């Protein structure tokens, strides 16, 4: 018999926009760029755009379609990201999905006391340390804004704490060009030299325009710095429906797309081929509390929709998920985190940040991160689909079984159980009596214990001496300048 081909496994994937819808949003974006225009506050960016064929009217910079098309064609389709030890751990490519912490919360739930308090620099390092151990956290983004450092040096301290706390790739933020230069100096010292950093980048910039339609000078300067140095960058706007964006998701997507593409165009005009991570954040502004909701269904729906746009442009994309509006790590948090993690995985969002947020992004929680790690693992099993082949169809075992007697002790079970079923690590499936015996612990308590155990036991390789030297220099110079 001719050897037959195996049955291919369908690995479920979600699209939420049809080709026609994607084109319609793309056309709307072109209309916004060419007719409405953006307010460009950076003189260098303005010059670059005008020279390339944009024009200015009524104080707005208006961008023609060909600049958009050229920039999309010019941008690399993949951004290989490395850990600080030089291993390729996060190839940002369409079809792949990566998760990470984030970002910049004001408060944290103290893992020892349970108290909600202001974030300190040590928390940023501790959470990086925790994420370093969590298998499904692929990158680190500062989980909080430390309140115990000089405000002007905030992002420097965040970067230092992240890079000490973990070897994983870092998504970082900066205040201005001076921040960018100091962070770059430290990163070069970690990598050993500029070339090594350019060839194996372990940091990616998160800068953003202000929705709607405002391109601040400092955000563009940060982007420009990355383009000059070959450091990957993202420029996701936040056209949250009813706030930074129109109340309707389609309009928010068209607007956010326009703002993001301005960043893409600038990066490619400065240096064609600059690695640029497409994407936007489309949460909903709640019409009662006016919080930007990280539990709303609009958020994952928007993130899935922008992935359809990303595929249209053949660019890997920024995304967000695994967060909650709940003030505590409770059932609401579980629902909201699961909802956005599952949808991001199904939509194959490339780089998913915001994992571990609670309180609509105001508070970080180590427990939420530990729980998210389990949700991601669970989701990964589901998205893997149902393999159909001779082994999995189990016809021999079915033929062998005594009716009613079960498969538990069958060789087919004993040979395949390990991979055929998903096994929880944090989720509790004990029988009642055993659960009681183990102390009647709920999910939060178990996650808290796991987090503390990791902080106690997990070791992170220290930074090279030269890097600690560069850090000391940067901090000393800043202290001198401040005093």
């Amino acid at each position, binding site marked *: 018999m001719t050897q037959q081909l195996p049955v291919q496994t369908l690995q479920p994937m979600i699209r939420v926009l049809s080709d026609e819808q994607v084109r319609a949003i793309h056309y709307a974006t072109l209309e916004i760029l060419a007719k409405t225009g953006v307010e460009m506050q950076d003189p260098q960016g303005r010059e670059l755009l005008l020279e390339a064929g944009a024009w200015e009217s009524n104080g707005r910079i208006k961008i023609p379609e060909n600049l958009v098309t050229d920039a999309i064609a010019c941008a690399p389709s993949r951004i290989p990201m490395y850990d600080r030890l030089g291993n390729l751990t996060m190839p940002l490519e369409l079809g792949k999905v990566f998760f990470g912490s984030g970002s910049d919360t004001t408060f944290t739930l103290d893992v020892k006391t349970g108290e909600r308090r202001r974030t300190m620099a040590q928390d940023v390092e501790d959470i990086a340390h925790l994420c370093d151990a969590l298998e499904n956290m692929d990158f680190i983004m500062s989980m909080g804004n430390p309140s115990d450092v000089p405000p002007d040096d905030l992002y420097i301290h965040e970067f230092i704490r992240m890079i000490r706390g973990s070897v994983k790739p870092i998504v970082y933020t900066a205040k201005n060009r001076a921040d960018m230069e100091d962070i770059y100096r430290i990163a070069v010292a970690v990598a050993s030299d500029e070339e090594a950093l350019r060839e194996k980048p372990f940091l990616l910039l998160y800068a953003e325009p202000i929705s709607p339609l405002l391109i601040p000078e400092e955000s563009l300067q940060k982007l420009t710095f990355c383009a000059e140095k070959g450091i990957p960058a993202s420029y996701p706007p936040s056209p949250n429906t009813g706030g930074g964006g129109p109340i309707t998701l389609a309009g928010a997507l068209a607007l956010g797309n326009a703002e993001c593409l301005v960043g893409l165009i600038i990066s490619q005009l400065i240096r064609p081929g600059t690695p640029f991570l497409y994407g936007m954040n489309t949460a909903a502004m709640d019409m009662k509390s006016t919080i930007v909701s990280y539990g709303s269904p609009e958020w994952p729906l928007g993130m899935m929709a922008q992935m359809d746009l990303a595929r249209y442009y053949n660019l890997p994309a920024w995304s967000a998920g695994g967060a909650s509006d709940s003030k505590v790590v409770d059932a609401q948090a579980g629902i909201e985190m699961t909802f956005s993690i599952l949808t991001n995985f199904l939509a194959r969002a490339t780089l998913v940040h915001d994992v571990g947020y609670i309180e609509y992004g105001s508070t970080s929680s180590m427990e939420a991160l530990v729980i998210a790690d389990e949700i991601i693992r669970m989701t990964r099993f589901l998205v893997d689909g149902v393999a159909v082949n001779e082994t999995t169809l189990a016809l021999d075992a079915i033929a062998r079984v*005594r009716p009613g007697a079960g498969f538990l002790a069958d060789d087919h079970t004993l040979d395949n159980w390990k991979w055929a079923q998903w096994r929880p690590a944090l989720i509790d499936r*004990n029988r009642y009596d055993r659960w009681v015996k183990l102390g009647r612990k709920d999910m939060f308590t178990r996650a808290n214990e796991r987090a503390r155990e990791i902080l106690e036991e997990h070791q992170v390789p220290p930074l090279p001496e030269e890097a600690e030297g560069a850090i000391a220099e940067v901090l000393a110079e800043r202290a001198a300048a401040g005093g």
Partner: protein
Amino acid sequence: MSDILKQIAEKLYDGEDDAVAELTQRALDEGLTPAEVLNGGLLAGMDRVGVDFRDGELFVPEVLIAARAMHAGMAILRPLLTESDVPSAGKVVIGTVEGDLHDIGKNLVGMMLEGGGFEIVDLGTDVPPDRFIEAIKMEHPNLIGMSALLTTTMPSMKRTIDALMEAGLRDTVRVMVGGAPVTQTFADEIGADGYAPDAASAVELARSLAGQINKSDG
């Protein structure tokens, strides 16, 4: 304990049936007695499996894979062993009670008890009280274990215990019950001697109950 017996116990724990068979043969070739290989190797390994399963460190298939390895060793030893070489933790008659056709949970308990060194007589499913009585008369077990998956078949457990009393057999055996709807309270109400919520604790329970009964003919 000699090195080879330690290896047998380890390979058994890991469920490597071929290695267990090979090492069992080698131990005999090296001059160890069948009883030494059984007690110091196979049963020592199985004891560790039982302890770790009870403590929640092993999954059911891992226990069954270890049991499969135990069988591989026993296939070589059995023809060489005399009756007195084989220690038994006791004899248990098990069955799913009258009106209930559910087999899987009862089978699991049976396998775990077997792994724990008990001799098992499995009466199957839908077992009426008089078949339990018949088996007690024939097999002289230390224990009987009744299983029910349905709330509607739980009363059969009480009927069976009542029948044991009427037949004058109640004091000759200890009775344990289990199954999804069964609770300790129910077990107490119907006059059972013990209840186990899962297969691992069923082994513990059987051990403690078997210790209370000394069979003159065992």
